[in-house]
């Protein structure tokens, strides 16, 4: 499923922060976790995760350290900071508000079922 770029950009901060809140992690593992959590529905371009991590680091939401992984390679690990936890709580609050609003409106609206042919909803030409 294609998810709009703006939506991916907006949701990347809370998702990454939440994954880091589960425990220290690094780029590849974070992406793997995103794939698991979304059931494969959210596909990020791998390279794009790193600028997000660097932004969190710059804003003080996460701190990074270089360590040697079990593979013997040097690896950059990220850890959430207290500022990051506060930011995560704030994001959580905001996303819940957005989610609640959308749920409210999804309930009253009847939308075409995803995957069905939109043309069938249009009235058929009469007496053709």
């Amino acid at each position, binding site marked *: 499923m294609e998810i709009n770029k703006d939506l991916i950009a907006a949701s990347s901060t809370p998702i990454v922060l939440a994954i880091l809140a589960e425990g220290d992690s690094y780029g590849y593992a974070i992406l793997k976790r995103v794939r698991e959590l979304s059931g494969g529905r959210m596909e990020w*371009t791998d390279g*794009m995760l*790193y600028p997000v991590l660097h932004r969190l680091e710059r804003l003080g939401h996460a701190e990074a350290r270089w360590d040697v992984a079990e*593979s013997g*390679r040097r*690896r*950059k690990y990220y850890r959430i900071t207290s500022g990051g936890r506060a930011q995560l709580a704030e994001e959580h609050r905001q996303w819940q508000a957005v989610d609640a609003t959308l749920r409210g409106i999804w309930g009253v609206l009847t939308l075409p079922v995803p995957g069905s042919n939109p043309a069938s909803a249009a009235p058929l030409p009469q007496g053709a």
Partner: protein
Amino acid sequence: MPAPDHNDSLEEQINQWRTYLGRRQAIHSVDVAELEDHLREQIAVLADAGLTTDEAFLVAVKRMGDPDAVSREFAREHSERLWKQLVLSSSDTGEPLSAARTDAIAAFGVAASAAAAIKLPALFGIGLDTNPSFYVRNASVLVLPLLTGYFAWKRRLDTGTLRWLAVAFAAAAVFANVFPFTPRGHTEVLTALHLPIALWLALGIAYAGGRWSEVAGRMDFIRFSGELVIYYILIALGGGALTAFMGMIFKAIGIDVERFFASWLLPCGAAGGLVVASWLVEAKQSVIENMAPVLTRLFTPLFAAVLVAFLGTLVWTGRGVDIERNALIAFDVLLMVVLCLLLYSISARDPRSSPGTYDVLQVVLLVSALLADAVALWAIAARITEFGFTPNRVAALGENVILLVNLAWSAGLYIRFLRGRASLAVLERWQTDYLPVYVVWAAIVVIVFPPLFRYV
């Protein structure tokens, strides 16, 4: 088992990918290392799932995303990286940093010594205010040996060369001080102006560090000199702002700093600034675009337009060149500017690329400058006996002839290049081979002129 062969080719592929990514300004080498760790893990997972290493590599690279898009994303997060930073060179490994630090410490040490050297004569009772002409004559003898020494240390010159450089500076010190100059006379001013030019060769030999015999070595020194002038001017502007500010705030509390400024800050700053500017040029040469060729490109069309307009007006109105006493110097300066424009445009040019409009412009500039100078020389030749041969006039005439010969030959070579008969490398060789001519002439002015004109 597909072991070593496949692993080698994988390493090779990862190497290529790493250099390809590393070439991007916004992605630093630590980031490449982080992305490489990701890539390797991805490849390992895919290979476990049954892909061959080649396939795994391709898929992993594809998942990493379009390098341009990723680099754009990095640039958005690290926008400061698009501005090349001279001071921020710490992002890479530690080893070159310590070398850079040693170099910086050495440079600032030499700058401090140069500042001290300019005040050294004051210890022996030769004050800047009591004997200014001593400083005018000796400024280059006091400062340039230190700058030359800095490059001699940096390039690890052999003792044979060092000995020759020492002899040159000793000779310079002798000729600057041994003649009984008339105070503020013409020959004294000529010595003060020409001694730095002659000593510039010594600096060049130290700078080139054994590559002086090569065209490329001398060309590097020409590039260095151009950048040095620009950096020195920038430092001087900063120094001017600093002293103006200092004067203002001290005036507010009723203290006049003019004496301190004139006898300490200005001479020491001017001497130390030269060394700092040289160090900056060296430190930034691969980090920041060279400025001299950029200015050259900006001003070559403008100077060409002014000269063509001048010649056109000359022909249209039929006026002769009104030769005043200083007209010759004005035309010397014109030729010098044109020479600099030529030098710095070829110094930045890829000698293999074929001629373009800019090259035609360059030839227009050269030919019009030569014509303007020829008109001036013709007017001077007609009246030289009337004016008499003063040392200033002979020096200016000699310089004019030297520059004229250089530019005439250069114009010929450039036209041959435009017509596809010769490469620009010939012009580069001609220019770098010509450097000693200026030095020899400057040395003649310093050594022969004072006795020849009875020290007037």
